[in-house]
């Protein structure tokens, strides 16, 4: 299995008069982990939402596995069921126990039998190490556990790609590790991932490529080695230096 899973071309998006994204193009290959970094308000989260059309781009096109998903004729709900998304503040369904959070997409979107869905959901919970929490409610879990459940929820749908929107930014420093470990394992297992993150350690050790964004455009893109030690743009170096100082390199 090879090839390009995701291709974005010339994505534009503005809110009110403010243009947040100003022509973003990139590709993600199968099995690749791509990390998007950049200052706050640069449009990183907006970019992720433009990809799965939670906020459709004003201009530009997106392809998933060669199919254009910005085409109005495409059933976007079906497309979204094959793109996982992990949010900064988890967004687990508050009224459902952990098992149902992972299972509901299988039964209500994919129309799977309850028993089959349960087995699959339990498998995914096992994968993130939370099988024993299946009957707990989200509010009874720590932030790190909630985020792992939300990863299991995304995984259960058997996605072609998972989008991570600052998955560790809302977590206590102590809980970041457990989430990053799950993500590192996913990367090793060959999951295709597009990650917005400030975790430089993760970016450096796991990412195949890093995209540095600022003011709604991609400033520089390349393997971590190149961006960290030999950036083409002065601004890339400055940002990486500052962020590394702030967040350290714990996962190196």
């Amino acid at each position: 299995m090879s090839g390009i899973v995701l291709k974005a071309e010339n994505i534009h998006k503005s809110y009110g008069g403010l243009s947040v994204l100003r022509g973003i193009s990139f590709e993600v290959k199968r099995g690749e982990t791509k990390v998007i970094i950049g200052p706050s308000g640069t449009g990183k989260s907006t970019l992720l939402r433009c990809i799965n059309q939670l906020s459709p781009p004003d201009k530009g096109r997106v392809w998933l596995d060669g199919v254009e998903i910005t085409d109005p004729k495409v059933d976007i709900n079906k497309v979204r069921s094959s793109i996982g998304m992990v949010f900064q503040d988890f967004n687990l369904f508050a009224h459902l126990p952990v098992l149902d959070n992972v299972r509901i997409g299988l039964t209500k979107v994919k129309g799977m039998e309850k028993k089959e869905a349960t087995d699959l959901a339990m498998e995914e919970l096992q994968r993130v190490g939370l099988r024993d929490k299946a009957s707990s409610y989200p509010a009874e879990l720590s932030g790190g556990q909630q985020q792992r459940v939300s990863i299991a929820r995304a995984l259960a749908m058997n996605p072609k790609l998972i989008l991570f929107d600052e998955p560790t930014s809302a977590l206590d420093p102590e809980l970041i590790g457990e989430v990053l470990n799950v993500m590192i394992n996913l990367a090793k297992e060959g999951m295709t991932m597009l990650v917005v993150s400030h975790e430089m350690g993760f970016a450096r050790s796991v990412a195949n490529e890093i995209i540095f964004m600022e003011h709604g455009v991609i400033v520089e893109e390349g393997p971590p080695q190149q961006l960290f030690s030999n950036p083409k743009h002065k601004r890339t170096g400055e940002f990486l230096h500052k962020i590394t100082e702030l967040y350290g390199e714990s996962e190196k």
Partner: protein
Amino acid sequence: MPIDKLILIWQSFPSLLKGTLVTIELTAGFLSLGLILGIPLAFGEVYGNKFVSAMIISPFVKIFRAIPALVLLFLFFFGSASFGFELSAFTAAILAIGFRSSAYQSQIFRGAIQSIGVGQMMAARSIGMSKLKAVQHIILPQALRLSIPPWTNEYAGVLKDSSLAYAVGVTELMRQGRYIVARTFGNALLVYFVCAVIYFILVYSGNKFLGFLEEKYKIPGYEIKKRPRKSLERI
């Protein structure tokens, strides 16, 4: 209490209970109509087409919240005849106060829906649910839970409003009481007091039941009426 008064209460009990039954029927009618219309109105207002929301839902809610219940009742009862179809007093009451309740209930549900974070809808859409499925499986179950406490008010409100149906001739509790007062002499206070006690029991037991529902369906770790911990009690 003189024995003849006790006998009077004893003797009027069957007719008061008959009236109570009508009061309960009215209340059930108001609440059902209010619920059946109120929920779609609320979702229409939050998620629906902007044009429909501005041109239909919003005026409906504004009008029915701004006109006194008694006036609505008269408009429906006397108005229906001049439009060529005659509503019974009971039906007119159900429609007038039911529509009014739907306006109030829509605002209860709207508040509940809007207090649910946008992230819930986003997460539901992100796993491929349509808007309708997301509302059905994710938003509605949470909104209904959050609506129980304010809905308890609505229940108590319309139950008491049912006494207004007296004015168009529905033989509910108040009218039954009125008949007894008219038949006998000098018992107005006593009879109306008994009516008051019956209303109190209806509201109280209904609220108890709703409190039980709230407790039963609460989301663990997410309770709305969580009691403060000991150390916070003085705040």
